[in-house]
């Protein structure tokens, strides 16, 4: 049986590139967003012909983008986080793609809050992992996430 046909990658790019880039700008900051964006799109293009299911291309792109954002955070951390990669199958998409405005707001958070929020929600990391990645205590990581969310709630109201 023939799987549902994949559209030209160009169509995917035209439709979703902007949302992916703004998600990444929110997630890793504007200075690293383009690198992450390029890595995301190249990975996607490489894997594209083998993609079995064309029903949620946007979700698929965002899953790759989210992984690249987490990679960027880990690379930035002084020491590697002492944990394995999150299982991509287990972290079922929380539909970050539907929240482009939210990620736009995340971008405007202070750096510490932004990193904590991204690790928690884009990276799906536990507080001990976030603390390790940010070279800080669990309490402080929890505090940064809490402050970040409070600020987001105010901004998005």
């Amino acid at each position, binding site marked *: 049986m023939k799987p549902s*046909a*994949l*559209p*030209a*990658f*160009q*169509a995917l*790019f*035209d439709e979703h*590139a*902007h949302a992916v*880039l703004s998600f990444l700008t929110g997630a890793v900051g504007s200075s690293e967003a*383009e690198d992450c*964006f*390029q890595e995301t*799109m*190249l990975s996607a*293009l*490489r894997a*594209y*012909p083998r993609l079995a299911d064309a029903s949620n291309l946007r979700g698929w792109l965002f899953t790759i983008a989210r992984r690249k954002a987490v990679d960027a955070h880990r690379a930035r951390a002084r020491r590697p986080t002492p944990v394995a990669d999150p299982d991509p199958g287990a972290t079922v998409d929380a539909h970050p793609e539907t929240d482009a405005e939210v990620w736009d707001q995340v971008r405007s958070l202070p750096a510490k809050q932004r990193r904590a929020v991204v690790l928690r929600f884009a990276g799906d990391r536990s507080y001990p992992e976030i603390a390790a990645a940010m070279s800080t205590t669990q309490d402080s990581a929890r505090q940064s996430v809490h402050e970040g969310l409070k600020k987001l709630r105010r901004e998005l109201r």
Partner: protein
Amino acid sequence: MTVDQTVTNRFIERAEAKGLIDVAVTTMDSPIGTLLIMGTTKGLVRIAFEDENRDDVLGEVAERLSPRILEAPRRLDPVRRELDRYFAGTLRDFDVPIDWSLTGQFARRVLRRTARIPYGSVASYGDVAVEVGTPRGARAVGNALGSNPIPVVVPCHRVVRTGGAIGGYGGGLPRKRWLLALESG
């Protein structure tokens, strides 16, 4: 909304350098309307006139060849240059490599034969049928020409009816007349 052109250009450059673009696509203006041009690493694979739906054309190539299709104009520069010179009347024979992957066995034979009809002259459907070894196959030849994936460069416009009637054209008769007039001028 899409991303900044320089970001897009960098992506295209890197994708091309890594060999990840199976089919490059671009458009160009011409006296017979905007042309959509597609090329693989083997050569020119598709030309579409502007009245064909772009998404349909890309979708068909995605399905038949590869969905790794991106706007990468540079790969198609040689094709564009030859087409420009052809439309200006200064080029008679196209020299760009052709990728025949979108044609079946019979159509390929018909189109290869058609590609040898000299600039400025015409052949009949029957002539071509005889030359590809199917003397009674004028209609089949017509069908093969009608589905020519690379019009203009593979000059199916040079095939007309016995007796001089213009016959059909996948891109519409006004375009066929225009091309024949260009070549007789």
